[in-house]
């Protein structure tokens, strides 16, 4: 199972990178970035998975004994929580930038924002 999800994760990372590197539209690039992020999160969660493990929420009595062999790893999950929120922040900021850029030049083409170069 975790093999399938981690494969999906890596493929989505690549898809995101592909979008960032080939599409010209700013919004499309941000979508690519969002995909790239999601892919990484999937990889992270797959990593936490332990075969036969249950969610690290100890709401059943039997989970309280020998907990370590019954649950999946909570640490990467905690990291992903953080990463998702950070990703939202970055995406929102990028979108705000895209909006202002569009106001500036009435264009969303990344090629038209090359005033700074060399």
């Amino acid at each position, binding site marked *: 199972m975790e093999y399938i999800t981690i494969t999906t994760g890596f493929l989505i990372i690549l898809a995101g990178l592909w979008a960032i590197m080939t599409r010209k539209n700013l919004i499309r690039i941000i979508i690519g970035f969002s995909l790239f992020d999601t892919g990484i999160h999937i990889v992270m969660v797959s990593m936490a998975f332990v075969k036969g493990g249950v969610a690290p929420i100890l709401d059943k009595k039997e989970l309280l004994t020998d907990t370590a062999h019954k649950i999946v790893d909570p640490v990467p999950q905690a990291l992903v929580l953080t990463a998702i929120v950070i990703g939202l922040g970055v995406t929102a900021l990028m979108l705000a930038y895209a909006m202002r850029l569009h106001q500036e030049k009435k264009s969303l083409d*990344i090629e038209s*924002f090359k005033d700074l170069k060399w």
Partner: protein
Amino acid sequence: MISPIHILTIGLGGAFALGFVPKKAKDAAAVLMLAAIALMGVLTGSWLIGLINGESAQQIFTAGFKPPFSINLLMGLNESVLTTAVNFIGLLGGIYLYRNLKEAGNHAVMVFLIFIMGLNVVIMTRDIFNLFVFLEIVSIATAGLVILTESGKSIQAGFKYMLATGIISGVLLLGIIFAYYYSGTLNIDGLTAANIGALKGGSVALLLIMVSIILELKSFPANGWGLDIYEGSNAGIGAMLSAATATAMYFVLSKLLEMAGSEWNYWVALIGAVSFVGSNVLALKQRIAKRLLGYSSIGQIGLLMIILGFKDVLGDNTPYVAFGILFSHYFAKAGLFWLAGIVKQNDIANWAVIRKKPYFLFLMGTFIFALIGFPPFPSFFAKWELVMELVNTGNLPWVVAILFGSMMEAVYLFRWFGYAIKGENENIEDFKIEWNKILPVGIVAIALYVTGYFTSQHTDAGAAINWIPLFFVAAIFILDFLPVFIKNTIAIIGMAFYFYTIYPDLDNLRLVFEAIFMIGGILTLIAGYAYKGTRPGFYPVALLMYAGLTTIIEAQNTLQFFFGWELMTAGSYFLIIRGKRSMPHGLSYMLFSVGGAYALLMGLGMAFAGQGSYDMSIINSISYIPYWAYGLLIVGFLTKTAALGLHIWLPGAHGEAESDVSPMVSAILLKAGVFGIVLTLIGMGGENNAYPWLPYALGWLGAITAFSGNLMAVFQEDAKRLLAYSSIGQLGYIVLGFAMMSHLGWLGGFSYVVNHFLYKAVLFLTIGAVVLRVKTHNMYEMGGLIKRMPLAFTAVMIGIIALSGVPPLSGFAGKWLFYNAILEKGWYLQGAIMFFSGGIAFMYLWRLIHTIFLGQLKDNHRNVKEISIWFLIPIYTLLAGIMVYSVKPQWVLQPLGDIVAQWFPDGQLTWDGGTAFTKYGHWAGTAVAVTIIAAFLVVTALLMISTRKAHKVKQFDITYSGERPERPETTHVAYNVFEGLYQAMWVATIPLVEKWWNKVSDFLHDTAGIVRRIYSGNGQSYVIHIVLFIIVTYFVIIGG
């Protein structure tokens, strides 16, 4: 002491509390922010003091659990230094940006505060995921600050920055999670222990982590986004990025390098070297100030990465070297960015406007010299230590890369500085003074000097440096507002007193040179009384040069020597560029000097290798590739003596300098190079020289230099340039003399040293004084001045007789010794060249008399007065010296002979009273001189009597020829007088050397112009660069 964790409490608490400050109370918000940053600074500062005083480093545990189970932070010595630095620059930056932040409102103030807080935590944290989170805070805050003073460009830069850092942090996150997978921990110390690099997947995870941090440091060439952000953002933010962020990120890299293990050292150094050289070369074409600073920042970080990579080699010295470079960069770059914000000029050519407020020029100079690594700034000592250690451990290619990169940096920074000093500034709008912006700039400038002083005290060699001359320079700089008369008196008294106090400590060899430097200095300073007003800036720089010269003489160790050498270079550079049209020559002077200094540095490093000491005596026993070492030392010194090939700066620099500066830089300064060559040749063993090829080559170089210098002098129409080329020729003689490595050769060399000092000072002072009166350098615009300035005429006449080396005057002594030495040595071909160039010398010397003083007086010179008395005093003092030397040569030559005999006891002159004997003949100086002078006086008297009734012809009395000249100067007998010779000899005058250097320069600039096109400005390409960078590093480091 308060726990450092409360940096978070203060920073975040402050930021959250800002939400309550009413929107209208803008000042309150900004003040609250500054107070919070100051408080963080006090907290870290108290830790810094505590840790220096021996407290132990403190681990900060959060959540009540020990690592690796919870996040921990560390406050050690390094951390306390760096967090204090970040808070300090944050406070200054906050003050600088006060108005911008205030106008942008409370939100911007919050962002700035969180930015500084984030950097603190980035430095302290010991948990890699926590590091990731706070790096994100820093980069998001940066993206916000970029648009502080919004323009279309800054928004573009911000977007590219977000995109690039987004990708980089994604890669970092991937690396982190896999590192966790392999090691089961996120704690940096735990990861270090786990050594995940040994696993195949683990090594890739490590690579992703390392490369993303390296990319965050904006490594060349995947750094287009970084350059854009430097250019696109407010200068105050650029300062923060360059000083604060780069400092923190650099420390992060060093933290993670511990974790990655020593295999990574090499790769970090390699990436650093590529970045340092690449970035500095590409900057050559850059003309936008802030972007130029960006390139320079990236280069400096590259240099720091090299240091980090060599931390095992540098050992305990690593912090010293790294902090030395880091702090110079930190202060200087912040200062320059802030200046860029004050001056508000994009194009570096427009920075000439900074001159309208001279103190700003001083600040800019401070920062630029600190960046390049001149004394007394910390980078000087750090670079010294770095090169010494690297050479010592045989890492020569790295040293070459470092010095090449530094050289490139010097090229563009000095070009920029040159525009500031000399560019056209009349049509550029002056800049406003805002005190909140100036204060931080002033503080960092002072901090540079202070840290420089303390850096020097850290090592034994540095602590031995005598700072008194430099303090004297500082004092006179502070008194710069006083009139010339007072400053000149202070300077003369100071130099005389200093000479008086130190001369008993010097051996005879050094005394000769010190006497030339100091007595010559005092005499030329006397001429300064002729100037009126305050003559701003002259005295500090002149004294700086003399401070450097005396430091060279006094140097007990090689560091001191190099320290003096660089001070002298800096001082003379500023002296030279005071001339009206001397800027291009000033630049080439500086670049040759810097190049020469780097050759010296490397040579001294080789001397240090294997000997483990900085004592001056190490150059007497170089054992590590000695041929190269001595060769480099000689090349380094030859840049100052302007040997052929390294001379192109001299004619312009000396010719265009001010009237009393030309003698300083010609008669005095050039001797510093000679002193160095003498030291090197002594080091090679004197009579038992083990490296015969070096002096042989040097001899040829001297002979050819003598020939071509003299030949070029012949074709000059400009009196001062003529003298300048003549100096090149004369120095050629000197070099040839010393290269002969025999008693007579050296004695000849020394006699030329003394002589050249005397007559070149006389000639330059006199011609300079004449130029001040007639307002032109061109000889064909003068003429007949003998009637108006008989005293000047006499001085020039005696000077050229001394120079030409005919009896009876002192020049003959040198010539006579030379020919004896050549015969003894058997260098007949070189001797022939010398003899020939001596003949050529007559062809230009004659013109100095004829075209300036004889012939017709020009109409516009009917009323010129005799040259100033303040010039006449030193001139006639020097003339007295020439006369004494001529009449009693044994008074000079015998002591010199004693000095030379220390290393060349064989083949001495034998003296019988005033008569010197060699195996080829004898010479009775006194008798010859007295006889000839008497004969001369008789003949002159006879001539004067017999020509009393001669008819005088006015200049334009052309009835005899019946032609009306179209251009008046063509009636001047001396105009283009050597056309015939030129037809025959023009081949020899093609400026081949200049062309070659131009080709080199063009090649580098063209390369830069082409390669920098990879920074296409397209954010997408930057992402591709980043991914490519990761791929390339993967294939290079881990392999396919």
